[in-house]
């Protein structure tokens, strides 16, 4: 029970008690009637109407949805006008039930089951779920259902990406929409981009698996049906191509759906697929969110993911001829993003999110600088390494924008003073810049502990090198 105010203690109002008892008795009778008819396998119109009435009142009673599916399965298998009418009935009923409870798992599943039979307009479904997400923008059932429909329709990722951007522009704190972008971007760029051969192959595998999963989902939704509707089946004139989708994808799913396949990459690890230019556009989008709603965590979580993507480009190039270029590109991104954080901190010096992000950017910077001075890269990396070790953080600034580096230094030393000396081992391999960065990082976490004491335990672990949310532990620390 969520969000229902507590009744005040004291003698209960007899009228209320009477009304509650009546409601209980009526509901008990209706349940008994429906479950008895179910047990007797009564599939007539009157019985199904009673079942529908119960579900409108109480959409989570899964057994009664099972009852309806049992009754309607033969009708849908037979196809024709009767099947079209039956699906329309289930869509109307689930719509009323979702009005009562938009988070009912059982209702959403029933709708998928009905839709997967292929006797209805997918366009209309997309429109309806769009309306639902206008009213209830974070409903994850709704977002999941939208993905289900979009995949059945074969909508290109680019179009859904536009939809996600539309939802973000409506409200920057729509975390569901940001989440959606993290799944769609790798999909969109899966086929090519500058992802390189490995990334391209991985992305192709990943989209094949996505198709297989979709097939599995559609076939799951259609469970219990002997066959998906055949092409050319009478009674669904408007949706010919879409209707065929489930059965086609089911067929495609067969070879992929073997046990013991390597696990498909989760969105969190499919990061190198998004090209750097596309990432730059995303950094720009999320920057607008920061300046509109700096306190909202949605954009900041998204930004952390973008940093992971940028980092992945550099990591993929390690030990190749592209390493120096990727390293410079990453340092430029870090400098630019540090500057954004600095700008926000100038407006609101105690803002937690820009401070946390700035601190993590410095951790990343330290990781990049360290890696070059420890000689991990090939010869081409040494030139870039020299410029890094020369000036540490200001070197990063120089490769990006001029103004950023001085700003970073200024506030960094300010923050650093409060927490300097909180021992962050920086391996001793980098020059003065590394030590400065270490102090800034320690100072950042010290300030975060003051600003956001609920998460003190996390900040302490991060400060002391026991937690790594963006930057990776140094080789020395990892070896310990």
């Amino acid at each position, binding site marked *: 029970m969520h969000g229902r105010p507590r009744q005040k203690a004291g003698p209960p109002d007899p009228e209320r008690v009477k009304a509650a008892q009546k409601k209980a008795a009526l509901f008990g009778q209706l349940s008994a009637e429906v479950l008895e008819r179910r047990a007797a396998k009564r599939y007539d119109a009157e019985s199904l109407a009673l079942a529908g009435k119960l579900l409108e009142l109480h959409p989570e009673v899964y057994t009664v949805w099972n009852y309806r599916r049992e009754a309607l399965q033969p009708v849908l298998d037979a196809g024709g006008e009767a099947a079209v009418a039956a699906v329309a009935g289930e869509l109307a009923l689930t719509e009323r039930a979702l009005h009562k409870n938009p988070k009912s798992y059982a209702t959403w599943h029933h709708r998928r089951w009905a839709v997967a039979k292929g006797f209805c307009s997918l366009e209309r479904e997309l429109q309806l779920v769009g309306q639902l997400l206008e009213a209830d923008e974070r409903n994850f059932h709704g977002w999941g259902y939208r993905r289900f429909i979009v995949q059945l329709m074969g909508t290109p990722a680019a179009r859904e990406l536009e939809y996600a951007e539309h939802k973000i522009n409506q409200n920057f704190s729509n975390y569901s929409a940001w989440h959606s972008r993290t799944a769609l971007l790798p999909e969109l760029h899966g086929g090519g981009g500058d992802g390189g051969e490995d990334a391209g192959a991985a992305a192709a595998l990943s989209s094949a698996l996505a198709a297989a999963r979709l097939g599995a989902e559609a076939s799951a*939704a259609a469970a219990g049906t002997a066959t998906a509707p055949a092409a050319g089946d009478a009674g669904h004139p408007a949706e010919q191509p879409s209707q065929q989708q489930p059965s086609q994808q089911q067929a495609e799913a067969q070879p992929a759906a073997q046990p013991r396949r390597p696990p498909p990459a989760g969105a969190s690890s499919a990061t190198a697929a998004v090209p750097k230019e596309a990432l730059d556009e995303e950094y720009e989008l999320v920057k607008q969110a920061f300046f509109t709603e700096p306190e909202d965590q949605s954009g900041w979580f998204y930004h952390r993911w973008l940093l992971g993507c940028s980092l992945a480009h550099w990591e993929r190039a390690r030990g190749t001829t592209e390493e120096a270029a990727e390293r410079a590109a990453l340092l430029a991104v870090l400098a630019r993003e540090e500057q954004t954080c600095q700008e926000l901190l100038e407006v609101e010096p105690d803002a937690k999110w820009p401070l946390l992000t700035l601190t993590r950017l410095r951790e990343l910077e330290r990781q990049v600088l360290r890696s070059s001075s420890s000689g991990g890269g090939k010869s081409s990396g040494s030139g870039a390494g020299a410029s890094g070790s020369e000036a540490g953080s200001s070197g990063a600034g120089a490769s990006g924008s001029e103004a950023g580096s001085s700003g970073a230094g200024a506030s960094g030393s300010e923050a650093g003073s409060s927490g300097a000396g909180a021992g962050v081992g920086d391996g001793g391999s980098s020059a003065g810049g590394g030590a400065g960065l270490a102090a800034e990082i320690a100072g950042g976490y010290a300030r975060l502990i003051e600003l956001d004491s609920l998460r003190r335990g996390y900040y302490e672990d991060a400060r002391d090198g026991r937690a790594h949310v963006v930057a990776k532990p140094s080789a020395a620390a990892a070896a310990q």
Partner: protein
Amino acid sequence: MVHPARQELLAEQHARYIVEFSQNKDSFEYFATEHFRLSGVYWGLTALHLLGRQAALDGAEIVAWVLRCQRPCGGFGGSERHDAHLLYTLSALQILALYDELDCVDVDTVARYVASLQQPDGSFWGDEWGETDTRFSYCALSALWLLDRLHAVDVPAAAAYVAACKNFDGGFGCTPGNESHAGQVFTCVAALDIAGRLDLIDRDLLCWWLCERQTRSGGLNGRPEKLQDVCYSWWCLSALSILGRLHWIDQAALTDFILDCQDEDGGGISDRPEDQVDVYHTFFGIAGLSLMGRPGLAPIDPTFALPVEVVDRLRERRREPVAAAAEAPVA
């Protein structure tokens, strides 16, 4: 600030509330909760165990009723008149484990039912009607562990499917591509724990996301920019506990939030202060306090959501025959 009457855990009132709720068979709630009563009984009973008051309910009567909820397929329905489903199959086994009565069921029949719901991609359907969700992956693995029949399913495939539901924030959704949610995070982390694959988790990233669920109220929410709610004391804390990061949230602040959700008059715990109480939030509030080591409460196992004592008993019993079998060829 905790309400003056709620500074302590009102153990006596909560126990009375649970017992009275389970005996009031005329209320609307009684009918409205019929389809998931097995879970309701599991929540109430486990809460009573944690409070050390399990004797308040008649165990023999409950076990007999649980067995009446089993369907011929081997799975359990939410109550006598409802269809078999993995959710209630797990609740049934958890109740039987609490009473040390798992021997009352034919273990292989139940295990076969669970195994019949695994799909080629490693996922699990909730029942024959095909709903796929990582909640069911947890139900399946947890149920099979209780039965000591994990090998009845393809555990690596089950773990791979759960891993495919991992998102950009380190959290997990109900199917691949779906948004992270703290409830789903618990089921996925616990499922991977049972499968022995915690290495598939981005531990620091996920735990940071989880500790960001704590709001200024001290309570935890289930997704970013959502309201705090007592039930997430369990969903978030259990995952943090399995992953060894309980200290990433402010436990004192969370304790105060849970205590303030108590109803000092009728007993029970609600989602937020001054809301109506229910058995679900009463259990998850008490379970959260137990995970944080509150004195006076028995400790709860974060993976199986059962008292540690119950899980240890099952582990002990398994160790003995295994040791005997290992010695056999030598002798």
